[in-house]
């Protein structure tokens, strides 16, 4: 139990680090930890240059499982795109550019990956 709690706290504090990092980079935070039933959770939603940005935060305490950004794989991308579409529909967002960024936290520091992926393969109307 202890380890799971540790993991949760590590993630939670990672998101806090990411938020402060995003604000420093000129992002305006709109929403945090938006949970949509059955589909999952969006870590951070913010606005940057009039774009709606969906941010996924990944943290690794060491590199034994690879880079944090590598964990945003095909499956995770698909999930995020679905969540983003649902969020847009719920909030009735129109005429805005949408972007997916990834914040990777690792022992060597904090990295923001803009335009981490596009919705090509998964996106259907």
């Amino acid at each position, binding site marked *: 139990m202890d380890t799971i709690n540790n993991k949760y706290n590590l993630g939670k504090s990672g998101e806090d680090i990411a938020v402060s990092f995003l604000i420093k980079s000129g992002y305006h935070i709109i929403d945090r930890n938006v949970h949509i039933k059955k589909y999952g959770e969006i870590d951070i939603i913010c606005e940057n240059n009039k774009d709606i940005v969906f941010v996924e935060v990944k943290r690794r305490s060491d590199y034994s499982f690879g880079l944090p950004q590598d964990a945003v794989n095909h499956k995770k991308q698909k999930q995020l*795109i679905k969540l*983003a*579409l649902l969020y847009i529909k719920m909030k009735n967002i129109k*005429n*805005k*550019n*949408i*972007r*997916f960024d990834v914040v990777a936290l690792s022992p060597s520091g904090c990295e923001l990956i803009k*335009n981490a992926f*596009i*919705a*090509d393969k998964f*996106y259907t109307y």
Partner: protein
Amino acid sequence: MLSKVYSASVIGIEGYIVTVEVDISPGMPVFSTVGLPDRAVSESKERVISAIRNSGFDYQHKKITVNLAPADIKKEGGGFDLPIAIGILSAENIVKHELLSKYIIIGELALDGTLRELKGILPISLTIKKLISSKNYVEGIILPAANAYESAVVDGIKVIPVTNLKEAIMFLNNEIVIEPYKVSKENIFSEQSEYEIDFNEVKGQEFAKRALEIACAGGHNVIMIGPPGTGKSMLAKRIPTILPPLTFEEALETTKIHSVAGLLPKTKSLLITRPFRAPHHTISNIALIGGGVYPKPGEVSLAHNGILFLDELPEFHRDALEVLRQPLETHEVCISRANSTLTFPANFMLVAAMNPCPCGYYGSNVRECNCNPFVIQKYMNKISGPLLDRIDIHLEVPSLKVSEITDDNNTGENSKTIRERVINARKIQLERFKNIIIQGRKIYTNSQMNSKLIRKYCKLNDTSKKLIKTAIERLGLSARAYDRILKVARTIADIENKTDIESQHISEAIQYRTIDRFVH
């Protein structure tokens, strides 16, 4: 923002204009290409995005829709990379719109933004020329620099060579001036083709040389029959050296086909020598006449205005030989597939070579043939009567005599002398057929005459008529063979600069049918 760029592609050997529409709207970051793109076209987005970024422009993922119109033709190849990239940048207002409607843009992008050369530029250039002459707003073409020399052969269009994406954008924004690329036709044609081989290297075989001269003068099909080692292949390889150089129209037609097939030599804008195609006898019928899901020209079309040499004719697949019948008669091939029906020109001179029997020595005076009659008959039957009927000149290439083999003096005529006679005979024919068009196609040689023209230009005097009647009765020649004799006789008369066909011309022409007897 919406933008519109004009591009072009090739279907068969004809170019057509494609409108590339790019729409960028806010929304999910998606890049979709519609308008029947094939794999190479739908993959182009990866090249386009990388090329834009690596050319120093800021690329933001947005909802990009690319439409390639007309929507019902399958788009192939990498030529749409550059128009798509320019379309995206003009939708983002990085490229100005004014010049976009004046130029057709094609080019394949490398990831660093440089342009790679493409196939089929000549047919596209010819299409653009047609567009310009129909008072269209189009002025020219922007293409990879490596393709400029090919396009510049077509006069009346501005050919703008660019080396990379950035240069193309700067040109469209009027930031730099690129002079239209020009080549002089005279220079291309003055580069006379020098062959390393010559007809006087072939020992003896004066009869065969004479027959090949006639064949070249009139564009007649030839079959050479003879034992191994008598020089059949050697003679065939030297046929291009006595053929006249291509005329400009012929060169354009032939280059168009080679351009589509991607066989054009890198430094040449036009083929100035006649093509010599010698496919191996294992060739399939599709490779021979052309085909594929999106039909591509085959060997017969690649040999357009040149020579198709089929060595060891009976070894070819029977169906491959039978498909030759239609192009030999109509000088074009019509290829029908579920997606499209296309017609490729195939006006070639067929030169075939074969042995008289499987061992090769039937009828030879050097060695005895050890094949039994049934085997010989079977070997000969591999070539059908109808195919043989379409070959004007049947030629026996006998074994050389010992004195001819050991004679080291090149006493025969060289290619240049023969060529002059051939050119002269062809000149007469060009003059004769100046205003004649058969089925929308210009004709150049005697072999292309249809029966109506044969009646008109091959009038016989009474002696000749009597001679040919006897020949038909004795040799059992078909009606088609009769036409062939007249055509060959016409060519012989042309070589000798005679306006009328005389009896000696007819009798020489009949000689070149005697293998009909040999086969039956």
